[in-house]
């Protein structure tokens, strides 16, 4: 009887192990399907025109998303102006001086901001930038994206700086170097790789954001005419084309999605390369 029970327990063990494996496998299946579709549909659609041409009038076949691709690059570059200062310098504060209630509050707010729906941040950007400027603009879009970036950067910076051993700081202080110099010139540079990783991860995340751009950067069928004007972006363009009825636009939407994923993938792979062998911040 004990032997039967033992067999039963072994059987359950095997069953559960198999189930667990299946669960992991099933979780992967949608990913493989999506990537597969992207590759097959997108690869058919991507051609040189796609990267060099502007969109054609509605209903006409052809044209490309050149302005949207450049637009996304500009938006994420600009977003850095908002996200990096608060993110990196804030992260330095949290790591060095954040052992107090203020630090706890900042960390908590950062986590909450991380979980805030991006559309809510878009509403904020609309009220703060679009309405006073009385225009949709790349600045408004970058503002929204920059805010979304902050939690990722702040957390990565804090973790990486905390990893630098205390002995390094003590050594610097013992040599008579002022504290601020120790932090800026010694501690931060040694955490550089991890901080860069955090930035890259943040860029990968905001490159795909659509919702906040719908009513901040708006959209532009032509090349951008300066940062105070509406600007096209890849995710918004994909959305517009996907819900339309035009077959050619659907084709271009797949191509756009492929390019977007490629961008994000490259950023992710870069982070792995940059920190190969070193500790990675948890995402």
């Amino acid at each position, binding site marked *: 009887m004990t032997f039967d029970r033992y067999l039963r327990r072994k059987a359950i063990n095997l069953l559960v192990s198999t189930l667990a494996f299946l669960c992991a496998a099933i979780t992967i299946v949608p990913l493989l399907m999506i990537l597969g579709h992207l590759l097959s549909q997108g690869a058919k659609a991507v051609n040189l025109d796609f990267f060099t041409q502007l969109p054609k009038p509605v209903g006409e076949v052809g044209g490309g998303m050149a302005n949207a691709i450049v637009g996304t690059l500009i938006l994420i570059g600009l977003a850095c102006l908002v996200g990096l200062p608060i993110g990196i310098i804030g992260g330095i504060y949290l790591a060095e001086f954040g052992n107090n209630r203020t630090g706890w509050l900042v960390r908590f707010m950062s986590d909450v901001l991380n979980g805030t729906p991006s559309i809510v941040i878009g509403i904020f950007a609309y009220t703060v930038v679009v309405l006073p400027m*009385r225009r949709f603009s790349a600045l408004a879009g970058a503002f929204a994206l920059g805010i979304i970036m902050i939690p990722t950067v702040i957390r990565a910076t804090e973790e990486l700086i905390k990893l630098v051993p205390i002995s390094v700081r003590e050594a610097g202080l013992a040599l008579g170097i002022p504290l601020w110099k120790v932090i800026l010139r010694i501690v931060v540079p040694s955490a550089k790789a991890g901080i860069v990783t955090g930035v890259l991860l943040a860029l990968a995340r905001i490159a795909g954001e659509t919702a906040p751009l719908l009513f901040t950067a708006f*959209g532009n069928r032509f090349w951008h005419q300066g940062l105070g004007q509406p600007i096209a972006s890849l995710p918004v363009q994909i959305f517009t084309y996907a819900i339309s009825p035009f077959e050619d636009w659907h084709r271009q939407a797949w191509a756009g999605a492929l390019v977007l994923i490629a961008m994000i993938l490259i950023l992710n792979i870069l982070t792995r390369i940059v920190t190969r062998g070193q500790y990675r911040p948890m995402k």
Partner: protein
Amino acid sequence: MSRVCQWMVVGALSTIALTALESLSSMSREISAQMLINGAGASFPNPLYSKWFSEYAKVDPSARFNYQSIGSGGGIRQIKAGIVDFGASDAALSDGELKQMPRELLHIPTVAGAVVITYNLPGVQRGLKLTPDVLVQIYLGQVTKWNDPKIASLNPNISLPDQQIIVVHRSDGSGTTNIFTTYLSRISKTWATQVGKGTSVNWPVGLGGKGNEGVAGQVKQIPGAIGYVELAYADQNKLPSAILKNQAGRFVEPTLEATSATVAGAITELLKDMRVPIVNSPGERAYPIAGLTYLLAYKEQDDQKKGAALAKFLWWAIHDGQKYAPGLLYAPLPPQLVKVVEAKIKQITFQGKPVLAAH
């Protein structure tokens, strides 16, 4: 090795930063370079407007018109907030709504278009006939199957499948909806009391699509679907349009000629007030669901160059631009109407002086 990669990363980030900087510097050159004039609104005329703006860029290279199709509701809202330079709407603003605008707003009609009832019935290509009553009942959710006797009796030559009718309407504020619901309210008291008319109504049944594009997209994707879109959308996507019974009792197919007939039938009212709805127009050959579409511009412009460029474009649109309309199945404005619109465009001023040089 990781050093090299770190430098690569730095290089990538610098490129992004440089691109951003380049734009920053171009912002200062913004005024001297090409003007970007932003507009937003109706999806109803979007196929034609996008063609116009593309062609007009060759006529006047100094200005670029960036038009985003977000629905008439959006056009009205954005021009009211002053966030775009011009709006576009198929739903004309009432006097009360005009009073709420910060300054006097002009309606400039550009073309007329037909709102067609498009459907996706595998096996049934063209020629589905519908009457106003049946149409109302479909959209009220009272007729739910394609092979319902009410539809079948109108179409004895077509074998209708035993399939659920999947109603599609607009999820956004839409001038197309306004034209469609104005029509339904006129021909059905039930609809008028239960649902009413407007750019955005409380639909009894159906899926929501964003823009004419979204509705056409849904109809195209879902077998058994029925939706209302501007004629150009049905045509460009090879979707069939239903043949409707008009007020005179004849079944009329939505064509360019039928739309023009509708406008012609209503010309006397239009000359008095161009905002009058032209649905359910009397006339043998008129198609019952049609409407004018308008560009909305402030009478008093706040930028001289932009105002002049905009007025110049509007002038071009109602003259040379009209030749692009028939190709996309929009009905051009009749000559009497053009004269009235010309007078309106001449009213656009900057600091009191008309922006348009004498034509």
